[in-house]
């Protein structure tokens, strides 16, 4: 299998090779890998890659999936413009 041709994070175009390299370098949580590879930072917010990365970590480190966690997910869940943030506030104020 050509690891360079296997995509793990489709939003940020991160390959299996990059994920495996990161794990080899000692990044062994999904959260860390997200930070060093940008996987999970695209529009789908890790829905495609999160579980695949956890599985890869589990296989390479021998840590069972039960001991791993997915990446942190913070608000806002999905893109939003500043205008939308401020509009909400103003509208509610004027009620």
């Amino acid at each position, binding site marked *: 299998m050509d690891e360079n041709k*296997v995509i793990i994070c489709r939003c940020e175009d991160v390959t299996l090779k990059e994920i495996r390299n990161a794990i080899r370098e000692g990044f062994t949580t999904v959260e860390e890998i997200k930070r060093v590879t940008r996987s999970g930072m695209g529009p789908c917010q890790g829905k495609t890659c999160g579980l695949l990365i956890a599985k890869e970590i589990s296989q390479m480190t021998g840590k069972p999936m039960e001991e791993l966690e997915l990446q942190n*997910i913070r608000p*806002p869940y999905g893109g939003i413009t500043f205008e*939308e943030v401020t509009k909400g506030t103003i509208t*509610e104020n004027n009620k």
Partner: protein
Amino acid sequence: MSKIENLELLVVGGGPAGLSAALAAANYGIKVSLAEEREFLGGQLIKQTHRFFGSEKEYAGTRGIDILRKLIDEVNKNKNIEVLLSSRVLGIYEDNVVTILNDHKMKKYYPQSIIFATGASEKFLAFENNDLPGIFGAGAVQTLMNVYGVLPATNVLMIGSGNIGLIVSYQLLQAGVKVAAIVEAAPKIGGYSVHASKLRRLGVPILTSHTIKKAIGKEKVEGAVICELDSNWNEVKDTEQLIKCDAICLSVGLTPLVDLLKQRKVKTNYVSELGGYVPLRDENMETSIKNLFVAGDVSGIEEATAAMIEGQIAGLSVAKRIGKNNKREIEKRIEDAKNELELLRSGPVGKKIRKGLFKLGLNHGKNYNENFSEEALDISHLMKTGVPSEENLKNKLPSEEKVFDKGPIAISECFQRFPCDPCVKSCPFNAISENGNINNIPYVDFEKCTGCGICVSKCPGLAMFVVHKNFSETTSVVIMPYEFLPRPHRGEIVKVLDREGKYLCDGKVIRILDGKFQDKTAAVSIEIPKEYYLQARNFKVEE
């Protein structure tokens, strides 16, 4: 400071679980806001054009889209429910403030309780060239075809034989798309046997113990290389084969969509049987955070019927806590719903779910009736190939040949124990029985059966046939369910197929029942040479 809206219950997600949850609470006077990200309600039900399994009580035998219509109708009529469409929940904070993007404004809410019914996302698969255009998730294929009426491709390779993979394959065929094969890594088919048999009767190969190695193509998918797996899931040497196709559809499972729950730091555990990281919760669907409930696939991957019941339990639990009256009645209804769930999960198919729930610390001390947890028949061949064995068939056919002399009789080709009963409920002559438990295999009482053919259109698994062996000196008639277009017309000669979709003989259409009652599953009577009455189980209409 912005104003924060107070409300009693916020339901996040307008799929089967969310709709049921909102209704259950609103019916006891709770003020509910229902936030749905898309511009329409329905979740996955919106693309489920097939009939549902399960118990008649929970809409079995009805098509998903029709179940949805009923639920939406009720929701719209209920004045306690405010529906927020195109409303994406952006965040939930530690003080339970929820922000929702609606009408291009970010609004803040402060709900007394929340039910997360956010559903699931599809799992992805790692293989070479898995980013080529033409590689779809099964959900996307279904949305394109069944919601927007767009054909995704002309020849699809399906990866995964769970119920979604099987159903989407069938729907692709209905849309006129070829399905090159269904590839399954496990040694047996993941979905219900009746779905698999339906596909085999249409000639689609199901390759168990096989996996995809890579996608082939320059600009887009032109094919795929698959190979065989041994019992340890290792590749068997020299078994690679190239399958030509212009799309690869991934249906390798779902995983709970717990993103919002994680924002609120709800504890999740990895439970493979339930699809991935699932929230810890109690029997009433309440998570580790008080007044924060879950329902449906977000709490663990299961069927839509279970999702609807879980929604009811969550909604009722909220009503019980913040409602003023009817506590007793609500408790009783919660109990009933839990029993219903237990019944759904008590067969062999529910084994995995039971194991998963046990890992979550649920169902301790629950005594599932072990009599129903194993298959009644040896269906290993059927689950490997999608085709019933001779033994299986013998078990369901009349023990004596002369029973066929009586006239037309119904033959049930349903061999697996799973919670489903539309056949039983549809027969006006009480000729079909599951012996008191919905998980049992249905058997036809040939004495009582009149051969009317009603059950043929009502079985969601297309597993009921009526056979009239002695139609004439030399011919028999088989009534078969048919869900394809174009419909045959009376007198037409069609190609009759066996259980593997192989051509058997020509047959003549002598009757078609295709009215409102049949609800798009026509019952077509086909006259065939007598020798084939036990083999003829499908037919093809030449265009």
